Structure formats: C-alpha cells, structure tokens
C-alpha cells in the first residue's frame, strides 16, 4: 500500500523550546558539536491506489500543519 510521508517543523523564526530542551540534554550528556535541534512531526499516511498529490498537499497544508507557524514537506512514494 503506497505510503506518503508528511514532515512538519516550526518555521525558523518561531522559537522551539522543546528542541532547545533536547539540545540542553544533549550537552549535559556530553555530545559535543550539536549546534541546534528543531523538533517536528512526522506523519505516515497510507492511501488506496495512486496518491492524489493535490489532495495530499491540501491535507498537509490545511490540517497537518498550521501555515502561520509551521513549514510542511510532502514526500510521495516516488521521492
């Protein structure tokens, strides 16, 4: 069954305190060289038949992501 993946992350100008907390934990654990961490969401969607890119893009931009604060990337099976 075709799987479509949608990745959602906060826009660069929106601060991400959860990512910063992860970054702080990495530093305390001794992992050097990590500059920043941004936390996001990863959706895996199974569809019947050929994925309808237009419909999936609408789903991604109108429900899965809030375009006011988030960027969204759609990955079709051919990607």
């Amino acid at each position, binding site marked *: 069954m075709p799987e479509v993946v949608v990745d959602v992350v*906060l*826009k660069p*100008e*929106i*601060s991400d*305190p*959860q990512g910063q*907390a992860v970054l702080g934990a990495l530093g305390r654990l001794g992992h050097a060289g990590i500059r920043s961490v941004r936390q996001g969401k990863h959706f895996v969607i199974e569809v019947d038949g050929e994925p309808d890119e237009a419909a999936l893009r609408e789903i991604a931009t109108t*429900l*899965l992501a*809030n375009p*006011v*604060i988030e960027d969204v990337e759609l990955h079709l099976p051919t990607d």
Partner: protein
Amino acid sequence: MRIGVITFPGSLDDVDAARAVRLAGAEPVSLWHGDHDLQAVDAVVLPGGFSYGDYLRAGAIAARSPLMADVVAAAGRGLPVLGICNGFQVLCEAGLLPGALTRNSHLHFRNRDQGLLVERADTAWTSSYRQGQTIVVPVKNGEGRYVAADAELDRLEGEGRVVVRYVGGNPNGSSRDIAGVTSADGRVVGLMPHPEHAVEDLTGPSTDGLGFFTSVLSSLVGAA
C-alpha cells in the same frame, strides 16, 4: 440575551463559562460541537479545556468541527465570539484570529493569578473596562505562548489589535506580552487567561472577569 457556550470533546470550563454568562445577567445556551445549529444565540463563547487532548495542535481538530463552520460564517456577519484559553487556540486555528498559541517557552504548565492591562476597551467583549485598567484573573496553560511573525506582530500592534497584555510577569513567553487579541471589527476576541474564573469573590481572586460577559450584553443592547 442568549449566549451560547460550545462544548467540544475535552472542554473543561464550559460550565464555568455558562455560570459567568448567567451571573452577568444573560441566559447561557449549551451548544454541541457536532451540531450545525447555533440555536439563534446572540453571542458565542468557546471555553477552556483540552479539546481532543490537544492532539495534533491545541485547538486544531476542534477548529474543524461542524459547528465551527457556522461560527466562522456568523462571525463574518458580526456575531460576537469570545475564545478563552483552548477557545482562543480554536479561534486562531479556525482563522478567525491571527497568530497561534504554542508550547510555553519554559515548558511548564503555569497556573496563577495574573495581572492584565486592558488596552482595548471598545471591543464587544471589553467595553465594561477602562482603557489602561489593570485587572487580575487566573491563567492556566501549557501551550499559551502567543506567536506570529514579527511583521505580523507589527501590523497587529499598528492596528491596535492587542486587547489585553500581561503585566507583572509573562506566564508563558508570549511575544510582546500579548495575552489576547481581537478581530479587525472588534467582535471576535480571544485570550489565554480565564475571566470566567474571576466572577465571584467566593471562587476567584477577584470579580474582574465579569466585565467580559457584561460587555457583550451592552454591545448587544446597543446594536438592537
């Protein structure tokens, strides 16, 4: 005057909101998110809580419920709408108010009595106050940090769209201490703090919150 209070799955403060409506002198009307029926109410309150467990984003799924389509259409015709806490999140997700509410900058749930500066005393929900008045009402949220792009914040400030601002400390890292905003026409207002929890001396830190509910009555009388 009949003021609707919407219950979503996971709403918590719908009963308190209805009680505040009654104490202000209006008749509360229970509305169900799954209906397509505003029951001809004169105004609508979206209460606090954790609709759909804050899944996806706080307010995101509730904003797409059947009744919200009717609320958006009615707001376009000037119906006064107040969103409190989760209700504010729903209004932003529904596109009735600008910006978004995100995880508190310190990552903690914050629950305390909060000072607010009333910057707009001419909206449908704040006309009982004086511009520049400071009020105290409870605030309680984990995802209450108001954000928008800097250019958008500049535009909102320029248009006077900030209704209330935090004073005496910002509880959640909201941009520019913004606690609540209004639509361009002053009919739709959303705020993270809870005026419905400050309507009686017995149960609240003040009775300062009652003004939101009396304001809309006078705005409706004025319009009639």
